[in-house]
């Protein structure tokens, strides 16, 4: 195996991603606090601007587009806190990223025991 190349569909959250995504992840970190989640709900874009998200990151949040958020430096553990506001769990997020329905994604997971 070439140790320098990630498998298909896989990127490491490394220093480059951490720098690119700092503002986005910092905003998501604020969602540990219920008052901040409420404030985000009241005016999403204003909240994003306050944390200094760039246009690409704001668009990804607006579109609930997890792959675009990852490309913009989002870390999945922080994005999970944002997804929680939208009522989405890890299987909803998995389905979205793989282009499958949630039922199909769950069925694929169930098949992993075979």
């Amino acid at each position, binding site marked *: *195996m070439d*140790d*320098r190349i*990630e*498998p*298909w*569909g*896989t*990127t*490491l*959250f*490394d*220093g480059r991603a*951490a720098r690119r995504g*700092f503002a986005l*992840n*910092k905003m*998501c*970190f604020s*969602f*540990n*606090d*219920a008052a901040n*989640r409420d404030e985000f709900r009241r005016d999403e874009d204003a909240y994003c601007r306050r944390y200094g998200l760039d246009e690409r990151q704001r668009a990804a949040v607006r579109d609930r587009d*997890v*792959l675009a958020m*990852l490309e913009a430096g989002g*870390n*999945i*553990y*922080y*994005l*999970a*806190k944002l*997804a*929680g*506001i939208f009522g989405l*769990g*890890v*299987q909803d*997020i*998995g389905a979205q*990223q*793989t282009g499958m329905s949630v039922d199909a*994604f769950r069925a*694929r*997971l*169930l098949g*992993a*025991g075979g």
Partner: protein
Amino acid sequence: MARIIGGIGTSHIPAIGLAMARHQCADPYWKDFFDAYAPVRRWLADARPTVAVVVYNDHGLNFFLDKMPAFAIGAAPEYRNTDEGWGLPTLASFPGDAELSWHLIEALAAADFDLTTCQEMLVDHGFVVPMQLLWPNTSDWPVRTIPIHVNTVQHPLPSPARCLRFGETLGRAIEAWPRDERVLVLGTGGLSHQLDGRRAGFINKPFDLYCLDKIVHQPEQLASLTIRELVAQAGTQGPELIQWLVMRGALGAHVRQLQRNYHVPVSNTGSGLLLLEKAA
């Protein structure tokens, strides 16, 4: 003198805590997973540990990416759990043992493992879900706890080899503590899973079973893997195996396997359970 009585490897995913909060443990999806913990709880009732050293990774509750330690240890009289943002109920605080923490900090530093020391430390699902699995339905935890965080969030991560060595040093440090304590070491997380990217949902059962085999008597073979190999074989979150390697290292060269289970899927993961007793 303090004695390590055993080690447990277990999953720590939030879905387990949510299932417990929603009383779904007997549902068909969850029953086999939770049933496997019954013998472990019986062993705990007999073994009566007084201290649990819990090796896990924080997922964005105590540490943000502004400061991300590779290895961090709690040195507080108690550890609070709090809101992580997506609905896991908050559990009762966990008693600490700051004197033992500082002994470990000193002993590990003397052996060239320099830890970030935390006199305040919030503990997230990575810590609380295993505690809840071992001692369900209580707010009166029967052990004092020492949280140890190993970074698996932001690369570069500590290598598997370093984590095994860290565990070995931790084990010696625990057993150099002059008080009579019965210490349990928990390695938490894993096994294979990938939450992010187009390969999301990736689970590798053969590799998980290989890891459960090797970690008992040949942990060096797992320690020879690189983090990138772990990502390839076990998914982006698969490197959590390093938390298990710390636990395994702490038990020393010789162990007896008392309990082992593998269940797939548990939410998006392949889930391992291992109970090891330290052998003479």
